[in-house]
Structures are given as structure tokens and as C-alpha cells.
């Protein structure tokens, strides 16, 4: 294993694979906060050069958290298909990059090698990719999954309707829900971030949204993003659960900070399949975001891109229906400005797709960050071209509960219009029935939430 190189005559020597991975990252304030980023621009390129010549086998044998110490490492390693891995283990990371980008390489080819990749390999190749590489590579990979609707179908762009309310008022939630539907939003999921995480509130919120979509025969799924153990309790009480949500991290230690582990996820997954009301077979919904491991001190001195890739490795184990990065939510100490958020959004989407999951993105920012609505519109256009599975839809992009901004109902509708993308097929048929959409275009009824009154 070669950890040494020369650049402009100067020698750079790295102490291990983890350090190479960290220093090969594009610049991120979170890696600087962790004290692990490259110290100069030249050192960054030296690290990329060393990384490009490492083999996939060397990356598998050097996970950033040892298997003995971490169940996430064990899950990822255990899910690798050995036959496929044997075929590619001698490739360098440079060769993997070029294989992905080659014109002859199809989505089917990438889906196959995906099963032989560990998360460290996925992260490594992302670090060698330019932004346009990340877009091109991801655009080849279509991953579909089915809960009540089929997500990831070619030519579609789906959306999560996020009807959040500062006090979880059912009337308030339904008001945003109605409005979103008339813009063609909600085919990925109608997903509420609750203020009140209690069992009673979870049951009440689930029932309120479920009753509405049952009454209006909306082909989609509902979800309350309470802690997964609360959703499991609601399910046991007979509440209408389609998919089960949880925020996840890339190490066992950081998942502990989220109050979860493999056992809890296994139990929820099995119960959801057995007792949940969705058609399935994909019923899990995960959210992630670069920097969460450092924020709970579970990053093991590894960089935030590699830790993020490990989230996707963990997610893959549960054949999820939805996974999205909440890319600008964490704040400027991890992603400093719009440039870093856009880079992270493209990395996350690419890494998710290469891992084999139907990756979406909450393209967003907080008010203490050097970013604004124009920046996340840019990111959404870039990601739509990369084949991003879904975005969030929030009234005017202003989330009145979480106090951050993301993509709006209008944004999703405009992305579909500009890039000639459609809602998911079952959902579009329903929009036509309701007179909201005709031949892929919104009608004059779109934007009037009171079409859903009897």
C-alpha cells in the first residue's frame, strides 16, 4: 500500500488510509473543525493522488472504524457481494472512477458493481470526482423502490410534501397538505416533522393525514418523523403506518446519540413489514447529513464525506423506500457556505445512488449560513439533472416549524416544467383525475387548496 507521493517536487506522506481519505476531501468547514483537513491546497491534491492509486481491496481492509468496534462497519462489510467484489478488488480508485464515467458503462453495470462496494470505496471515488463527474455518474443509475407508489422511475421527479406546523395543529397541517397536492407535490411521501414526539401525538398526526388521503384516494404514503421507537409503539397500537422513519449516522456511537442501534432498526423493519399498511416491499425512510457524526463525537477522526457514505451503507441493509440528505441543515461549522452545500449535495446524491438506494435531497439552508434561496434552487437544478429521486415541498420553502428554508411547492413544479420531468405515474394519474394536471402541465385549478372541500 503506497501512502506517499511527490507533487511539484515536494514529498507528502500520509499515516494511514483514513488520513488520505480526509485530506482528499474538497474543502469543508466540518473537516477543519475536526482538525483533519488538508493544510494546503497542494496537500489536498497530493492526498487525491495517493487515493487514486489505492486499490478497492486496500479500502475494504481499512474501514475508518474497525469492524470489531462498530456494528455499522460490520453491517456494511457483511452486505458486500463476494463474487462481485472478487472481480473488482484489484481496481484502483482511479479505475473505478473511469469505469463509472465511461460511455459504454450502463446503469445496469453500475448497479452490479454497487453490490461489491464498501462505503469507503464509494466515498473514495466521490472525492476524485468533479461536480460534473458526480452529476454524470449519478445520472446513469436509476434505483426504483415501491411502497404504495413506485419511486425512481425514469423521467420522474418526486417530492415529499412537508406540511409542518409549529403546534402540530391538524387543521394547520391539512391546510398545507391540501395546498401542496394542488401543485402536484406529495408523490414520494407526505411526511410531517412533529413538534410533539409523544405516542398520542404521533397517532393523532398519522391518523389526520391518513384519513385525508383515504378520503381523497391519494396514491401515496404518510409518515410522521417521530423517533422510530415511538412510531413502532404507534404501529403496535394499530395506528395507520405506511413507512417508518429514522435519522441515521455512520457509526454505532453516533447512532447511539440518535437513540438507535441495529437491534432497534431490525425490530422496526420486521414489524413494519408485518403490521404496516403499505403495499411495500420497501417501507423504510432514512435521513442523513454530513457532519452529524462529528457533532455527536462519533466520527473516529474520519472525514464527513466518508461518514456520510457509511450512512448509505447502513441504509442499504434495510432496502429503503426513501433516503435523503438534509444537506444544509447542520450549519456553517460543517458546511460553510453555498459552495460547500452544493458540493455536499452532489456528493451525497452520487454516493447514495452508487450505494444502490433511491436517493433524494432536502436542498436547504439555515439563516446563519452564507446561502440563500437562489443557492438551493441552483443545487436543485443540478441534482435534477443528476437524476435526483425527490426533493422536499414546503409552502414557499419556509418551514414554520423547523425554522429553515428548503425547496417549495413552486420549485418542484418549476423543476418538472424546465426539465420535462413528471410526477410518479400513479400520482400523475390521480392529479389528472382531480383536474390538477393535464399532459404533464398544471391546470388553472393548481394552487387553489379549496378544490379539496366537499
Amino acid at each position, binding site marked *: 500500500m503506497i501512502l506517499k507521493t511527490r507533487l511539484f517536487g515536494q514529498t507528502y506522506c500520509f499515516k494511514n488510509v483514513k488520513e488520505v481519505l480526509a485530506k482528499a476531501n474538497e474543502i469543508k*468547514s466540518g473537516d*477543519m*473543525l475536526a482538525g483533519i483537513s488538508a493544510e494546503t491546497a497542494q496537500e489536498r491534491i497530493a492526498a487525491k493522488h495517493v487515493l487514486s492509486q489505492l486499490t478497492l481491496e486496500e479500502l475494504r481492509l481499512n474501514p475508518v472504524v474497525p469492524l470489531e468496534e462498530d456494528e455499522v462497519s460490520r453491517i456494511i462489510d457483511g452486505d458486500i457481494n463476494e463474487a462481485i467484489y472478487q472481480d473488482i478488488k484489484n481496481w484502483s480508485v482511479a479505475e473505478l472512477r473511469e469505469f463509472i464515467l465511461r460511455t459504454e458503462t450502463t446503469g445496469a453495470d453500475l448497479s452490479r458493481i454497487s453490490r461489491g462496494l464498501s462505503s469507503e470505496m464509494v466515498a473514495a471515488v466521490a472525492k476524485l470526482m468533479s461536480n460534473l463527474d458526480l452529476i454524470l455518474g449519478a445520472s446513469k443509475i436509476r434505483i426504483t423502490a415501491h411502497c404504495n407508489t413506485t419511486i425512481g422511475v425514469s423521467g420522474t421527479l418526486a417530492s415529499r410534501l412537508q*406540511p*409542518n*406546523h*409549529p403546534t402540530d*395543529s391538524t*387543521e*394547520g*397541517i*391539512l*391546510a*398545507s397538505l*391540501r*395546498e401542496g397536492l394542488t*401543485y402536484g407535490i406529495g408523490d414520494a411521501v407526505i411526511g410531517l416533522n412533529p413538534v410533539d414526539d409523544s405516542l398520542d401525538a404521533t397517532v393523532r398526526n398519522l391518523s389526520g393525514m391518513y384519513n385525508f388521503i383515504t378520503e381523497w384516494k391519494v396514491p401515496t404514503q404518510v409518515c410522521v418523523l417521530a423517533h422510530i421507537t415511538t412510531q413502532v409503539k404507534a404501529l403496535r397500537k394499530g395506528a395507520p403506518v405506511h413507512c417508518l422513519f429514522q435519522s441515521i449516522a455512520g457509526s454505532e456511537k453516533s447512532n447511539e446519540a440518535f437513540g438507535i442501534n441495529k437491534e432497534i432498526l431490525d425490530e422496526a423493519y420486521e414489524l413494519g413489514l408485518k403490521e404496516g399498511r403499505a403495499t411495500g416491499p420497501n417501507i423504510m425512510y432514512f435521513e442523513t447529513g454530513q457532519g452529524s457524526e462529528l457533532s455527536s463525537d462519533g466520527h473516529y477522526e474520519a472525514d464527513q464525506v466518508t461518514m456520510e457514505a457509511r450512512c448509505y451503507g447502513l441504509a442499504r441493509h434495510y432496502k429503503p423506500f426513501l433516503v435523503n440528505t438534509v444537506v444544509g441543515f447542520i*450549519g*456553517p*461549522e460543517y458546511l*460553510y457556505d453555498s459552495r460547500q452545500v452544493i458540493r455536499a449535495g452532489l456528493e451525497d446524491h452520487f454516493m447514495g445512488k452508487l450505494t444502490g438506494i433511491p436517493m433524494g435531497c432536502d436542498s436547504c439552508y*439555515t*439563516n*446563519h449560513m452564507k446561502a*440563500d*434561496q437562489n443557492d438551493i434552487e441552483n443545487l436543485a437544478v443540478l441534482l435534477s439533472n443528476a437524476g435526483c429521486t425527490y426533493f422536499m415541498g*414546503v*409552502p*414557499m*420553502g*419556509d418551514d*414554520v416549524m423547523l*425554522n*429553515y*428554508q428548503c425547496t*417549495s411547492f*413552486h420549485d418542484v*413544479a*418549476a423543476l*418538472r*416544467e424546465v426539465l420535462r420531468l413528471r410526477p410518479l405515474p400513479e400520482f400523475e394519474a390521480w392529479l389528472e383525475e382531480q383536474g390538477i394536471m393535464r399532459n404533464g402541465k*398544471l391546470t388553472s385549478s*393548481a*394552487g*387553489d*387548496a*379549496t*378544490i379539496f*372541500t366537499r
Partner: protein
Amino acid sequence: MALEDNIKLIVEQVLNQINEKNKELVPAPVQQEKKTACPAGTDETILDDITQVDLQKYLQVPNPVNGDFYREMKKATPARIGVWRAGTRPLTDTLLRFRADHATAQDAVLNDVSEEFIQDFDLVKLQSACRDKDEFLTRPDLGRKLSPESVETLGKMAKAGAELQIIIADGLSSTAVETNVPDLLPALLQGLSNVGVSVGTPVFVKYGRVAVMDCIGEELKPQAAIMLIGERPGLGTAESLSAYLAYNPRAGMLESERTVVSNIHKGGTPPSEAGAHLSSVVKAILERKASGVNFSF
């Protein structure tokens, strides 16, 4: 009930005092109108202030199926619904209002609390280990420490060993501090004096995060400390302030050992009411010698 009565009483007392004071001192209201001279010959008429529109009453959908129900829905949520569209894009005034609200939020984060404010309230001025706003935003670890000069200042200027140390910090909203503290602080001091709690020298920490109170605790060894700090602004309000209270503030204390009262602003808990309420919380913390998860009020 008795507690509520007590709060009402303090609020009244303080409001009276403030009104009296205002007659002489007039600490100018924060939002002073800035007049800009217009070139001669231009139209004297001024455009309406778009930020004065109550969005929850403003329905832009031209011919809704059910206008009454729409107005009810808008009343039920502060979310920006009923906004209509130009094709798939928002209408111009909706877009501009969104940008105006975001501008307010950004200014709240990036602007500093004014020197006059610190002087007006006789606060000892300290600074965290951050050198500037940028470092404050990217290095939460430094925002939790005091600069060496400030440690020195603290030793010289502030009284040690008080029952309660009051700390004000900009945090993520200078606007929240400048808007709420003028009403909150007098109510808090009045309430504390009513319940017989003595306070140390109030301090202000520029570029401060919550845990900088631990550092100040180490230096001054008060029995308890309260920190008033600006919350991260949303688009709905950039004025929200939080109070963090700690019994025996010291290095290495856990986040769960702090008691938090958040959402202090005119649309949430009004500042004078919050000040009165906080004085009772302080009293209880001192009596029970605990805060955070070990304490319920």
C-alpha cells in the same frame, strides 16, 4: 395562580418604571426610522411597506372554490399558503416578502449588538475566544471559551460569589438581544429583588455560545447563572431569545444540567413576562440547588 399574580404584579411595576424612565432617559426604540433624501423632482408618494402585510390574512388565490374556507385555513397555520403563482413561480410580492424576511434574519445573525446598548445597560463587555463573526459561526468550540483579556477584565470588573450571575450574549441574533433585553432585564431584576436574590455584575459576551457561561462560572463562582442569548432566526421572527439557567455553573457541565426557557419575543412569551417568570425559576433553582434534568419547575 399565586405565581401568575406575582408575575403580573412585577410586569406592572416594571412597565411603570420603564415609562417613568423613558420620560427622562428615552433609550431610543431600536427601530429608528432612517430617512433618505429623495432627489428633487421625483414623486413624493411612497410605496406601501410590504412587510406590514399580515400574511395570515392575505389571500392571493383569485377565484378559489371556497374563499371562506381558505381564510380559515390560513388562520390555522403561519405557513405561506394561498399565495397563488405566475405559471409555476411565485407572484412578485410573495417573492419580495420572502426575501425581506430572509434579509431580516441574515442581519440579525451578522450584525453586532451596539456599543450604546452595552453602555445603556451598564454591562461589562467581554468577548469569547472568537476573533470575528466568521470564526464565531465556524468554531463553536471557541465561542464556548473566553478570550484571555476577557478573563482578566472579569477578574477586575465583576463581583465574585454572587447568588446569581447574569450573562447576556449575542448568540445567533443580535436583534433578539436588542429587542427583548430592554424589557426583560428590568423585569428580571425587579422580580429577583422581590424574592430576595442578590445579583453579581451583569456581563455581555460578544460572539458567545451558551457554554461560555461555564467559563464565567469558573471565574466568578456564583451559586447560579442565567444566560440570555439570541436564538437562530427563522423567517417568521428574528427576535427570539432564550434563557439558559444553571446551578453551580462550572467547566465540563452537561447540556442536560441546564434549564431552558425559549421562544421569548413579542409573538411568543413577551419579554417582561419572561423576566418575571425567570426570577421565580432562579429562586427555585437556588432553593433546590439543581437545574436541568435534575430540576422541574
